[in-house]
């Protein structure tokens, strides 16, 4: 028996050793990068050690009893027939109850702490989950664009925030899409917004508004994902948070307020393709997409005004790097082929059209 235990221990040790070779996880809940995620970890760790203690006592007890009182050959004597012991029963009812009561005190305190209203200088962002990408709208008054009706700044896939500031996220249900056939419609379903290193998750529930408080201690990139099953491509509904230093943030906001600049050359051809209906009645990009400063204002798809801004690192549910030209071309060639069931239709674009559109998209800094 002891030998077997040793083998088991060796096996576990080997596994842990091998796991050391694994690359670092980038959505690690145990490596919080801001105060709100920190609170959750600070609650989990002590409970974890309490659980380890109980684990050792109970599992150790079972193993010890099983070995100590195992049947020995030739033993015929029947063990004493003990039926119970009321004092023990009361003891092992009360002891766990006390431990749990102790654990619940900081738990309840943290629940209410996290439910508090945000500070006045918090940055307000409305988060919308769509099938299958994230849309962000900066709703504060000083975050209005300088073009069109002066609507709020919108961005897709990457939530850009300043470091060391409280961000107050309002999660709203969205979707409904542009109608059309059932397969292509972008339905209003439940999503869950989750950036593990910055905050716990909250569901995005149609008809309700949920909130998350988050803050990043340092500039950097934080990965996240939709955590609630939301249909076919739930697994590819990724998101990133890019936290910027204060001056970079100012610059970013300033750039976002500006309209897009009409390009020249090939990109200009792409712009025309983008804005005009495609030939042979294939449809049009502007049915869904908006580009600030042009006639394209549709809200159904991602806002592409600053598609090529360096902070917009990834596209289409944050599955591909924006800088990856091949991925972008493949996406335009047939979205369904790279992301089955994508709500962006396949417009059967020619290679020349794709080249022009890619040039245009890359001009949208």
């Amino acid at each position, binding site marked *: 028996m002891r030998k077997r235990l040793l083998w088991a221990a060796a096996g576990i040790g080997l596994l842990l050793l091998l796991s050391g070779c694994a690359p670092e996880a*980038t959505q690690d809940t145990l490596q919080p990068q801001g105060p709100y995620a920190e609170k959750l970890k600070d609650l989990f760790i002590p409970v974890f050690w309490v659980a380890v203690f109980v684990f050792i006592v109970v599992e150790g007890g079972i193993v010890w009893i099983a070995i100590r*009182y195992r049947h020995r050959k030739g033993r015929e004597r029947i063990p004493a027939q003990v039926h119970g012991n009321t004092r023990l029963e009361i003891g092992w009812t009360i002891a766990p109850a006390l431990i749990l009561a102790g654990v619940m005190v900081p738990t309840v305190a943290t629940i209410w702490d*996290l439910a508090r209203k945000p500070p006045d200088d918090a940055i307000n962002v409305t988060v919308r989950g769509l099938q299958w990408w994230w849309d962000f709208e900066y709703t504060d008054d000083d975050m209005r664009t300088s073009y069109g009706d002066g609507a709020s700044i919108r961005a897709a896939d990457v939530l850009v925030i300043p470091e060391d500031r409280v961000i107050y996220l309002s999660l709203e249900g969205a979707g409904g899409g542009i109608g059309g056939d059932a397969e292509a419609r972008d339905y209003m379903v439940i999503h869950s917004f*989750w950036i593990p290193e910055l905050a716990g998750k909250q569901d995005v529930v149609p*008809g309700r508004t949920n909130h998350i408080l988050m803050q990043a201690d340092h500039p950097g990139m934080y990965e996240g*994902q*939709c955590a609630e099953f939301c249909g076919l491509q739930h697994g590819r509904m990724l998101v990133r948070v890019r936290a910027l230093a204060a001056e970079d943030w100012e610059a970013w906001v300033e750039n976002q307020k500006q309209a897009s600049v009409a390009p020249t050359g090939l990109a200009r051809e792409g712009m025309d393709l983008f804005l005009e209906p495609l030939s042979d009645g294939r449809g049009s990009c502007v049915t869904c997409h908006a580009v600030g400063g042009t006639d394209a204002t549709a809200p159904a798809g991602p806002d592409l005004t600053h598609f090529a801004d360096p902070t917009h690192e990834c596209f289409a549910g944050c599955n591909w790097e924006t800088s990856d030209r091949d991925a972008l071309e493949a996406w335009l060639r047939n979205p369904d082929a790279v992301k089955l069931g994508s709500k962006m239709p396949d417009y059967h674009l020619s290679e020349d059209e794709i080249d022009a559109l890619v040039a245009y998209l890359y001009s949208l800094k």
Partner: protein
Amino acid sequence: MATVTTTARREGILRRPMAMTGVRSWFTTIDHKKIGILYGATAFVFFVVGGVEALLIRTQLAGPDGTLLNADQYNEVFTMHGITMIFLFVMPMAAAFFNYFIPLMIGARDVAFPRLNAYSYWVFLFGGLFLYSSFFLGGAPNCGWFCYAPNSIFDPTIGPTFYALGLIITGIASTAGAVNLAVTVINMRAPGMSLFRVPVFVWMGLVVQLLLVFSLPIITVALFQLLFDRQFGTHFFDPTAGGDPILWQHLFWLFGHPEVYVLILPAFGIFSEVLPVFSRKPLFGYQFVVFSGIAIGFIGFGVWAHHMFAAGLGPVANTAFGVSTAIIAVPTGVKIFNWMGTIYRGDIRPTSAMLFTLGGIMMFVIGGLSGVTHSIVPSDYQQTDTYYIVAHFHYVIFGGGVFAFFSAMFYWWPKVFGRLLNERLGVIEFVLMTIGFNLTFGPMHILGLQGMIRRTYTYPESLGLTFWNQAATVGAFLIAISVLLFIVNVVISHSKAKPADVADPWDARTLEWMTTSPPPVHNFDEIPTVHALDEFWHRKYVEDERTGRLVPAQAGAANGHDADHADGWQAIHLPSPSYWPLVAALGMPVIAYGVLYSWWWLVGVGFATALIGFYGWAMEPSVSEEDG
């Protein structure tokens, strides 16, 4: 059932079936033991199918950007894995053991309503086949076992309709079965068997049936609402038309959490039977084990919203449900301590059954501890909908539930089939399954804490989740090998000559071991009169007046079938086999297909079939005339 006749007379439309053996007898049987075997065999087949789905899942996730399945196929497979394991394996497997052993353990000749029992089984079987026919009819359910609205009502595939109809059908089976078994336990106990002389397995069975009776109507209502939203244009859960998707969550989990205890309480019952037998000691604190089981049943109805901590119910609700979730850990802990008290100073024999029980308790403890961390609401904001949860409930349902089932298989196999399973193979299976199980689900705790979401068909390499996913996949195949070993064990055991006497191979304690193995159709030649908990044990061993120790009683005294009454059983009347439960059950999937395709004539055919079945059933005398 004494005089088995081969001549049959016309009674109503169909000839009264008389066969007690042979293939046809299985379709008309209303013997709780045969139905129990049918339940068990069917559930095991579904277990294998669900296991194959699990292997597909693990193979897909063995590396980043897996291509074995596409998103659509993966969503179908993980949904059907969950539905299969919960509704088509664990529940019916528990029903199999309850069906077979509750009457035997309480000294009854059958369940209270034998034909209803057959009806339950057939409805369950047809419900399962209906659900699986979806793979060939345009797509299986793809919305997860919880099938959250509004995704479920908007989904353009046929899957969620199959889900709603399939679960309504299996729910009918479970409800009928639950009423039947609850009435059996309450009304049909042997003389002298007060409720506190009933084995804990039977007690847990009673609690489970009551949980089902009270929780299934809730999910049935929700499933009908879902069905109406999808098929008839209502808007119960449609947020675009004023419906409330959170309503579905409340209804689902108000059923779903008691359901968790429906899945695990049978295991508690099995542990509580196996431990005393193989420690040769009575269960420690019988009343406390029973009452903690009842307490778990009650509190189980008050914790549902801990599945919804991230749904935004607000701090008041989250506090209340966090606290209630913590409270339910207390009676669960009481059980575990009592099991430890049972084996303490026992004479522990490490048979396969005992190993699976000890291992099962140890795995369940891990699942219980990770469960307590869910009551820490803010920390659950991080863990919910991640692989941490997947790890947790597999430690509970697989580690607790499935280990218990294998324990029960090894323990009761000789009783059911008159053959022992091979112990050496059993021990190897246990070791392999324990290693495979922990290698599969242990790393999932880590994956969840590292941010791997549930129900995802892929993950990018950049998330750094590859290593532990690979480990989990290796573990899954180890589990598959261990299950194969079990099948091999069964085949070997049944290809050998039948051993002479396995009436009581474990020196057991409860009534079912007082009759032959396998038991006769009428269970007991003479119904035993019960004087104590562990009646059989007390007949076998008496206290030596001089030393106070237990010593074997005089030979013969323990024998259930006393020589005096050897012929008494010939006067026993048992209900005769019947076609009607099968006919009535057949109507259910027919109605469902009709609703599915809006073929109203087919719905009519289904209703007519069911009505004919019920009519024939009602008009048929329970005992065939020439059987008197």
